[in-house]
């Protein structure tokens, strides 16, 4: 499915289920998402780790909505608890089947967002692993200079921010040096198709969602 439509669908599903109480729909969405993740060969260990952290959040929601609530409405409590899993799993479905590059291209080509927004975000994403590496390196560099930068040391983060600012500035210049101009028209060498099948899946998904949300309790 087209990346932009995927984002839209995930957004609509999450938003709609935030307002409409329908536990069965939540469960159905969760089941479909899980199947999709398994089809896409996401590692079971990664799924379990993700669900573990979601469960922490879900438990908090459940305890305040039911265990420590004055009005003990189990159905409603379960509904808002399962919403946590709905958000987690829909987002997981989105990320597991779309690379950052496809997403940026789709935002640019299909949704016609400004290209500096799409590529700026993408470039920022590409900096993240570099930043993680930089923090590690800064700690070692500190130790080599006899300075222990602990993980709560302001110097560590000051330095990390400096590295980030410097990278951001270089990146802006780098993009321009490779011919990027803000607002200029760009061609699309790698095309992200938006087919009838994409639309059919999108509207099919929406229809199923609404039928379930309004008919099922």
């Amino acid at each position, binding site marked *: 499915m087209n990346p932009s439509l995927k984002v839209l669908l995930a957004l609509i599903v999450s938003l709609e289920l935030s307002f409409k109480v329908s536990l069965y729909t939540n469960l159905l969405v969760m089941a479909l998402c899980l199947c999709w993740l398994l089809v896409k060969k996401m590692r079971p260990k990664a799924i379990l780790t993700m669900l573990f952290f979601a469960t922490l959040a879900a438990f908090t929601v459940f305890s305040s909505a039911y265990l420590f609530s004055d009005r003990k409405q189990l159905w409603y409590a379960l509904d808002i608890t399962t919403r946590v899993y709905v958000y987690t799993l829909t987002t997981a479905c989105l990320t597991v089947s779309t690379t950052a590059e496809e997403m940026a291209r789709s935002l640019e080509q299909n949704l016609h967002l400004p290209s500096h927004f799409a*590529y700026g975000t993408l470039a920022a994403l590409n900096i993240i692993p570099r930043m993680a590496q930089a923090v590690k390196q*800064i700690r070692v560099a500190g130790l*080599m*200079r006899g*300075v222990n930068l602990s993980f709560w040391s302001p110097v560590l983060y000051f330095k990390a921010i400096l590295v980030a600012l*410097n990278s951001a500035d270089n990146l802006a210049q780098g993009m321009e040096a490779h011919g990027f101009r803000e607002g200029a028209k760009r061609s699309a060498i790698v095309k992200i198709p938006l087919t009838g099948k994409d639309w059919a899946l999108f509207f099919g998904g929406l229809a199923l969602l609404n039928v379930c949300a309004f008919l099922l309790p």
Partner: protein
Amino acid sequence: MNAEISIQHLSFEYDEHKPLLADLSLTFTPGAFSLLIGPTGCGKSTLLKIMAGLYPKYGGKLTQGQVDLGGLSQAMMFQDAGEQFTMATPREEIIFSLENLGMKQEQYETRLQRATEFAQIGPLLDQKIATMSGGEQQRVALAVLVAMDVDLLLLDEPFASVDPKARTFLVEKLVQLKEQGKTIILTDHVFTDYLGKVDQLYRFAGQTVTRLSAKERDAVLAEEARFPLTFALPQTNAPAAFVLNDVLLKTSRLLLKQDELKLYKGKVTLLTGPNGVGKTSLFRALTQLLPYSGSICWEGREVAKQPARTYFLHVAQVFQKATDQFIQITVKDELAISKKLRKNDYFSDERIKQALADLDLDSHLDQVVYSLSGGQKKKLQILLMLISGHEVLLIDEPLSGLDRQSIKQVVKLMKDSQAAMGQTIIVISHQFHGLSDWCDYHLRLDQQRLQYVTN
């Protein structure tokens, strides 16, 4: 023929009233291969960035004058190639650049092929750029420019981390580009390979630039003929700082498979090898940044098991990128930290003062380290790491980006300090000028094996 590329009465400053370029006027001939030389911090990179339209947009102030490229399209390659990429892989970056130029799918195929062949990056096309070595990144950056097929290529020290063989190959390729009608303007501190290939040589000195005559040009370029290197082989029973046993080193591919090897104590060992062979990765293993299998012992103790806090007080690395080493803001603060760590009295305050003067850093004490020029950063970095007096120093490309005068100063500083303190030094360098008579041994890394060699 195109109009001339002209620069007229150009003045540029980063700090108010401290012009870096003052009333600079010069012309470049379109279709020529021009080389800019001059001491570090003289404004070569700045001039290229002004020509690329990046300055003053991204920094500094143009107080007067103008640049006219005569209608040529341009693209630039930065000194720090690794920071220039928007996308994760070379293929993606080339697609991104060609989309910026509005290319069609069919043009992309041929351009990609041409660029890949040019820089020989075929096997690297889909590898993550962040995992590549410095030299590989420079080759990818060159490939992007070739794919863009611009008229004017502005290259800022494009070969600083490229190994000698690849360097000769790439200079030859640039000559081919010139013959196809491209204009090439390039800065460099190393002049090997350029004799008979460079058309125009410009020398920066004291805010002015002079174009040398053909005779002067050839005299300057011929000065640096390759000299043969000879090294001794180590005595196998000499005391070792590091002992490697059945070591396997892997990143995305196998880098090193070494049965047994010693790195000798109190000696200076030169480590060389082609780009991307894993020289820096070996350093990363010695500094616990890259896991290894097998055993690497320092003074009889396993490196991976050493507590970082004490280990790094004895073993330190001088990183390829100078800014990685800095943890303070100004030059003065950085010096203060290194002084605190001093283990012996070799680097007295007096000697440090002298060294700062020798390195032309004494007037920059209050400057923010990140705002120093590339060469100044490098010089400061090396001084800082020598002052702290570690027993083992792993030095990665200490001479890249340094002009000849600075190389002399830096090598002398390293030599004197090593002689006085008896440090174990392992140095990676593609530039042998000045280093050859300092290093005791030559260790070569090729085809996943380290070996002491004599040449």
